[in-house]
């Protein structure tokens, strides 16, 4: 590196922003959003019934969380190796492990959220004549929302960050920019990738936070008092 290379070249960003290549920044961004968002949504959809089942049948919780934790502890690479024979080098190979990671956080969040409903509140709902389903939907879940959404924030941010690992199999979204950069000793793509991933994480976190504000006006009352 004798001739002084600038660390960052706007010209590269401009020429790679929106080309036809699947590796244009816009396409990678799209891939990144899909691969991080799908696990979060799937995780939420699956963790709700799973978490509620663990609350209802307490004995399920122990084995469920044990399995989740083992999966969470597995490094991504062997997981990809396990999946590739079935799913090939596709986005699914990244989405599936990330969904399990999301579950590992969200199932306990749902269980803890339901646990955050004070007993006297639950009792008085019963005493007033709520049916079990209505009590769940109108009393218990709304009160569990803050705890569940706190979990969802963690999952959203970590999911956006973890997608990059998919670069190992060429499905890393913006993470693909890193491999490119390290192979060529040319850092502009890497810096662009990092900045965009951080921005994406901030946006994702902001959206969940906004949802939380919207869904729990009563929490603000509580904080203020």
């Amino acid at each position, binding site marked *: 590196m004798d001739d002084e290379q600038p660390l960052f070249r706007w010209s590269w960003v401009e020429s790679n922003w929106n080309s036809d290549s699947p590796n244009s920044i816009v396409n990678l961004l799209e891939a990144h959003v899909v691969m991080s968002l799908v696990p979060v949504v799937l995780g939420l959809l699956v963790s709700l019934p799973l978490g509620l089942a663990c609350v209802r049948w307490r004995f399920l919780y122990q084995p469920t969380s044990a399995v989740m934790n083992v999966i969470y502890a597995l490094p991504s690479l062997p997981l990809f190796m396990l999946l590739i024979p079935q799913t090939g080098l596709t986005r699914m190979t990244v989405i599936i492990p990330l969904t399990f990671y999301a579950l590992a956080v969200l199932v306990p969040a749902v269980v803890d959220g339901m646990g955050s409903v*004070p007993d*006297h*509140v639950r009792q008085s709902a*019963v*005493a007033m004549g709520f049916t079990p389903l209505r009590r769940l939907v109108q009393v218990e879940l709304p*009160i569990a929302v803050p705890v569940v959404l706190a979990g969802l924030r963690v999952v959203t941010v970590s999911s956006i960050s973890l997608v990059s690992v998919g670069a190992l199999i060429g499905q890393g979204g913006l993470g693909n920019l890193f491999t490119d950069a390290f192979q060529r000793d040319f850092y502009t793509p890497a810096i662009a990738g990092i900045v965009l991933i951080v921005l994406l994480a901030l946006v994702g976190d902001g959206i969940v936070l906004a949802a939380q504000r919207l869904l729990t006006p*009563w929490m603000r*009352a*509580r904080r203020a008092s």
Partner: protein
Amino acid sequence: MITFDSVTKRYPDGFVAVDDLSLEAETGQITVLVGPSGCGKTTTLRMINRMIDATEGQILLDGSDVRQIDPPTLRRGIGYVIQQAGLFPHRKIVDNVATVPYLLGWEKKKARDRAMELLERVGLDPKMAQRYPFQLSGGQQQRVGVARALAADPPVLLMDEPFSAVDPIVRTSLQEELLRLQAELNKTIVFVTHDIDEAIKLGDKVAVLRVGGKLAQFAAPKTLLSEPADDFVREFLGRDRGIRRLSFVSSSYLKLRTDLTVTSSSAAGPSDDAWLMVVSEDGKPVGWLDRDEPFGTYVHGKDSLRAALDAALLSSSGQAVALDESGRVVGVATRKALDEALSEAADG
């Protein structure tokens, strides 16, 4: 009327929390269940709305077995108030109060109007309606709890130590509020407490339970004080039973003397050594004639004999000054009159 007919509750672990209980809670009256912690009061109460099902015996609500009624339907017709109020933290006060009307499928507007009406009834500022439970004090939350229980106008109200968690001053005002409401509404109330004074103050009838869920005595407060069934009840009632019993004797039995009052204008009188009460133009008590000493008053006929006796003890003369409800002097109760009333009260 709520009828317990030989009701026993045995928990799955074999513990008998309520043992062969039979009693009747009269329509339009406050029936208090009182006893030490763990004696089965909550269990008894919850068997009425089937939050707990009895193991043996049956519970009748106006003649029909509660077990014939689907629990949610049964519960929507029975108000329930608990110690921590149990308000929904995520709902505004007005919507908390409207809970049962919503469950019954009332229109939102009608339910909210009803909720606002009830908030006023229990003595809460309508401004509270838009707040969340966290923004209210314990006493205010408890009032909301009562309003919520009354929202759908259920004939029956179950209250489980509703005032135990608030400070004594707030508790007293909540108790008085309840008596005032009950005078208007005539609900069939079953009220649980571990506080015998509260039981005696609120109950038309009081059931004293002992640990093991056995009924020790079921009687009117006055009877309880004068004729405790056994040592357990006597001990539970505590000291000063005789004095406390006077709370249930009306002061109207006192014979008043009207010749012991003078109007301020006609200053002179037959004052050899009698104490004379000086009364102002508009009938208010001023003080003892020629003696700068304290005097005590009570409202004749409305206050109890205990209040009259208390007033007499506060007067240097030992006489109680009797007032009417607007605060005008109607006479003086002398020691002789008090003595007679007391001995009559002692005879029952």
